[in-house]
């Protein structure tokens, strides 16, 4: 069974390519710097994909750069949303 982390990496890879980078990613690698497509529109695409794939809903307050900075913060955000 795929872990949430695996699913998240798969989703990021489907959206932005960068497969090699994402497969070897560590939790603190800066996603915003490594993935140029992760701009304002890219973040909204990611939010939409996360909502559809993980059956969660984001609030406006969730849209802060800190949440999308690295895999660790993104995982924490998704876990937090799934818990509520």
């Amino acid at each position: 069974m795929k872990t949430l982390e695996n699913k998240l990496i798969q989703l990021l890879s489907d959206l932005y390519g960068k497969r090699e980078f994402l497969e070897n990613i560590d939790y603190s690698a800066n996603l915003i710097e490594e993935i140029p497509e992760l701009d304002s529109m890219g973040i909204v695409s990611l939010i939409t994909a996360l909502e559809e794939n993980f059956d969660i809903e984001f609030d406006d307050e969730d849209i802060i750069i800190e949440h999308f900075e690295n895999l660790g913060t993104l995982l924490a955000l998704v876990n937090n949303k799934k818990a509520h």
Partner: protein
Amino acid sequence: MPTKNGKCFVLEYIPAPEFSNKQSVLFIPPFAEENNNSRKMHSAIARNLANEGFSVFMIDLFGTGDSEGQFVEADWDDWLENIRQLFKNYLDNKFTKLNILATRLGALMLVDLFGNESLDIDKWLLLQPVLKGKTFTKQLMRTKIAAMAFKGEKCTQNDLQKNLVHQGLIEISGYQISQTMLDKIESKSISDTLLDSKNVITIDTKPKAEDLTLLDKQNSMLINNKLIVQSPPFWSMPEYKISEHLIKLTEATFNNA
């Protein structure tokens, strides 16, 4: 193409003369930055279709691309009139088969314009259509919120709505969008009944990791008249790889393959 507001730029991809079967495809573009991001993919699809014998028409709606006017002056109903005019003046009765490819918000425009008319259109191909205008405007607002977050500023959709009421327009991804335009978009939707019509085909390119296990070796899946394709959301990214599969899929759709 002259319109009541000014000239609209129309690009035609002409097929090689050996093709005697006069078929055409009219592209209806997506909205604002999504249109900009989609140009590379659209051009690749259009070139391929022209190579396969289709005349392909692309229009820059009033206030966009190489057409006259400013984006902030753009009006939903004027855009529909631009499309109708292109259809009537340049396409209707001139081709044995007329097809339409509409991407994202273009699909909503197409349905609003021709949804209740019985036109002799062979196929409607909706590429990742916006089904609910309200969902789309929410995404636009989120894009603005994300852009402000990059600047270290926080805001909510309520804040943006208040500003919108006060100023009558909002800047999103470099485009000045009027409240009238947003209200129009928000009021539109595509019905399930229309999506179930036999000549309407939807291509859904959302990367749903779970669904991909169901994809066949062609990397696509057909459920009723909906094709699910693995492809990045090219309309939301300035740099992406051209999806050869999507190009071939559009060709196959219009060729009835």
